[in-house]
């Protein structure tokens, strides 16, 4: 336990020293099953929200539906890209394409079936949101979803 604590403190103090962390370059899949690098997520015109979710995760579905409902209104106020990365493994990853079509969600969808990207970003659980600025730096991270969280996300986006 002592070792863990020392390491934990060491990490946090190192964290204070370092610069803004970047989105790591990881291969994931698009809904067609083709390999896509996360490099292509970065946009030079607008911030990008990346949301990690799963078809079996209740708060994830609530969050996605909520953002979908206000998406057009938000876009009028502040342009941003919304990428949804499903962390479903092969138990449910084949349902993602039909589920998002059946919900009519207006986002860009990707699959992370063996959680390579989730792990590289050190995400413990879904839902999890990050915002990437035009330089590809991670400027905001949020774990979990409770009703009303979306307002804080939008405020953060407008501040960028």
């Amino acid at each position, binding site marked *: *336990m002592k*070792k*863990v604590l020392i*390491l*934990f403190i060491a*990490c*946090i103090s190192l*964290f204070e*020293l*370092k*610069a803004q*962390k*970047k989105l*790591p370059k990881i291969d994931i899949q698009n809904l*067609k*099953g*083709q390999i896509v690098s996360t490099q292509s997520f970065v946009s030079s015109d607008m911030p990008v929200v990346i949301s990690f979710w799963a*078809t*079996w*995760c*209740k708060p994830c579905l*609530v969050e996605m*539906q909520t953002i979908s*409902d206000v998406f057009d209104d938000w876009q009028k106020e502040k342009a941003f890209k919304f990428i949804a990365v499903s962390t479903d*493994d*092969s*138990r*449910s*990853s*084949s*349902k993602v*394409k*039909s*589920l*998002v*079509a*059946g*919900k*009519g969600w207006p986002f860009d969808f990707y699959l992370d*079936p*063996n*959680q390579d990207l989730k*792990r*590289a*970003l*050190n*995400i*413990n*659980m879904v839902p*999890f949101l990050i915002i990437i600025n035009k330089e590809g730096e991670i400027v905001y*991270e*949020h*774990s*979990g979803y*409770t*009703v*009303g*969280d979306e*307002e*804080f996300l939008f405020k953060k986006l407008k501040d960028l």
Partner: protein
Amino acid sequence: MKKAFLILILLTLYYQVSFGQILNGDLTGSFESNNIYYFNDITTNALQPENPFGSNNYLKLDYRKGLFSAGIQYEAYLAPLVGYNPLLEGNEFVFKYIQFANNYLNITAGNFYEQFGSGLIFRSFEERAIGLNTAMDGVRINFKPVSYINLKAFWGKQRKYLKNGSGVVRGIDGEIDIMNAIHQDQNSTILLMGGSWVSRFQTYTGIVEDYPSTVDAWSARMQFEHGFFSFYSEFVEKTNEPTINNQNSQEIGNALLISPSFIGNNIGVNINFRCLKNMEFRSEREAVSHTLLLNYLPALTRQHKYALANLHPYGAMARGEIGGQIDVFYRFNKDSFLGGKYGMNISANFSYYQNLDYRNEEYQKFLSFGDKKLFQDFNVELEKKVSSVLKINLSYIDMQYNKGAIVSGGNDFINSKIAVVDVQYKLNSRSSVRSEIQHLWTKQDEKNWVYGLVEYSFAPKFSVFASDMFNYGYTNIHYLSGGFAFTHEVTKFMISAGRHKEGLECVGGICNQVEAYTGINFSITTSF
């Protein structure tokens, strides 16, 4: 740990930079700690373990600079929580790696996770929630000579609790994006084809003649998409290996997965058909439970979100199973007759599984239907935003669960019907209340159940919940539970207390019985 630091120092020397500069790379990580203090509970027969305090801890660190990265994961189980294998007790730097990656080559030395195709032949992964980690320890190479070809190879040993198992595993996988290879531009039609070979060697010192020390498996797969239609299929064959898990069967293993999807405007349909015959594949022949699994055979059924719907979970029958599921998702648009002002979502699923027919006493027929139904589930869910502050979800589930076949090998059905009302009410822009009422009707097993939950949350930091799951007519036990969670950006603290029912936990074709427990739980998760 020493090794990891040595690696970092070597990297520093290689670049001839000062330690100050190395800090300009990215150091990220995560920490998770789950702790439970257990009590004796005569009502549920939950016993306090000899060490009443269980604690599972994970610390992960990754360092990236340029094309190199390195990382570690430290795990401490002092003692392992109830439901985790007692053999996990201890603490260890279980995961260490260094990696070089540019646009076409990725080399990892040390520990890694990998998946070939859908994982039917090979998947190494981590599922902390049930103490499953099948990480490999060896070398992994991923080579993309051109944009439409992806080649992978690995060899190594597999994690067994906090150490490595004795089997040696090697595998190769190749995938080609055929339409891209022909046209080299954007295509409306997609055709991907792939194949894998995975082989395991473990010395055999027993007395059985011709006993296989090597088990080989190969697979072929394809993905096709055109317009509204897409299709995925994978076939696997595995050589024989008599083990305790397959009752010393000499059968070869086979698996076939066929999964078409259709999508349209506001509608999506997905079908899965799968047949498994003797497909349990492990890196040690003596391995049992959630250890040393080489492939991933999930139950292809609806993964339910509600407590009572998860009382009787189906686990895929790796020994022999045939069946499938169909999912339909549909959205009624805003301002349509049924959609109303905000629209309405409906989804339905039907799942059905049966055992395989036998050619003789020992051999099953692949792609045949036996005489035993294993599982059937029909469920439908309606999701409706009634007003700007009120959302209602209604679910109905009709489930037939062959407890005998799934748990003990007999033929003993639990037929249940479950109804769920889930209401979310927004009090103001930051606070909301959510409530669930669930009821399960059955004449078998422990008879009827009722469940209630109330959750209050105050965005973005606080939430508190209380729930009760009550069995009436048989045990008359209340499973009360309550808790509080605090979230600050990426850090989450949670305290909860309550009674937990014994039950099955199924992952990748393997189900584990978890004992009942009563306790106070404290957890913290964060990333940095």
